């Protein structure tokens, strides 16, 4: 799996991994082969190694000069804080988490539909919406508009003799009613009913 090496974008990155001995065995062998045949790569390896040794040396000069012992007082302080935290946690009253009652998911669309039905019933009750058949306004045709209830009954009557000739049954009924009313033929109108 010589893959890690080819994911690295620069020679320095590969050489850092090589020096740290963090390359997979196959990659390491390949780098060693390259080093054996490539003089400039060997120089780069030497430069990266020197740089690393120099920086590590500078850091070591400072850090090794410091006492290597553990600061017992500081460790003690950290441990005291941890102990206090544990005690606080132990003393904390266990709060019962209130279980939120959630309605099942399927109930939301049903509730929404029910609410919509109630709203529509309310609107129908106050007359804002009308669920009955659409009755055209015939007042423009006749000076005396026939009663809507009469027209509706005519239109819904299965035994309507004229049928929907030249339009809907309702249109025909309206026209006939207008004619009868205009001719003051009450008998004819009653006959129609």
């Amino acid at each position, binding site marked *: 799996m010589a893959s890690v090496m080819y*994911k690295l974008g*620069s020679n320095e990155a590969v050489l850092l991994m090589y020096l740290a001995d963090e390359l997979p065995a196959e990659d390491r062998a390949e780098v060693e082969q390259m080093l054996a045949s490539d003089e400039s790569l060997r120089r780069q390896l030497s430069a990266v190694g020197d740089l690393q040794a120099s920086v590590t040396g500078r850091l070591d000069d400072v850090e090794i000069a410091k006492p290597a012992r553990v600061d017992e007082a500081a460790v003690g302080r950290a441990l005291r804080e941890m102990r206090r*935290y544990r005690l606080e946690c132990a003393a904390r009253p266990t709060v019962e988490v209130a279980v939120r009652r959630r309605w099942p998911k399927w109930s939301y669309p049903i509730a929404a539909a029910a609410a919509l039905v109630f709203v529509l019933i309310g609107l129908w009750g106050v007359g804002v919406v009308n669920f009955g058949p659409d009755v055209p306004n015939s007042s423009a045709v006749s000076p005396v508009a026939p009663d809507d209830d009469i027209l509706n009954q005519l239109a819904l009557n299965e035994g309507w003799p004229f049928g929907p000739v030249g339009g809907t049954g309702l249109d025909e009924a309206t026209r006939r009613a207008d004619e009868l009313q205009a001719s003051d033929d009450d008998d004819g109108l009653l006959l129609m009913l």
Partner: protein
Amino acid sequence: MSVQGREERLPVAVSDEALVEQMRTGTEPAGEELVRRYYRPLTRYLHRLCGSEQLAEELHQQTWLSVLEHVSRFDASAGSGGFKAWVFRIATNKANDHWRSHGREKAAKSGLRLLTEEEAPEASFRLEASEQERKLQEAIDQLPANQREVLLLRYYGNLKFVEIADLVGCPLNTALGRMHKAMLKLKSLMDTGADDGECDVQTREQ
């Protein structure tokens, strides 16, 4: 490249992960052992990262409190590096949180410090014993934050590059690039600082 390898270390009879398991059950000595085991690398890492010993100790305590708080969530098999990488990640986050919340205060303090040094140059002269450390800290402070983090995690945490990349959340190639740049810059800054130091000594002698 590690500070840990050059120091006397406690015998590692029990693995970190085993101690973490004991810590979960509330075994206090397990926590104590872990604190001792990581005291030096963590405090030195935090010291170099934030530039102050007092702050490093404070962050060190916060780190362990956070470990205690989240120990139940630690999963050794989840990320690379095990407990060590996890605890260094927490320490790094604590330091970053601190800088985010105290960034303005720090800028004001550093301005004040520079002003004080200009007015009283002999003040730094008294710190000759720790001159080398001061120079190192100044050089580290001048590194870009992401380069500083990688360099310090490598040196003080002795983490593998793959673990560092995972910890800081960048590709391996980027972590290695940052490491190389950090080393180049630190060397350059330290060399410049050393030259300046020599000039200062010559000037004072004259």
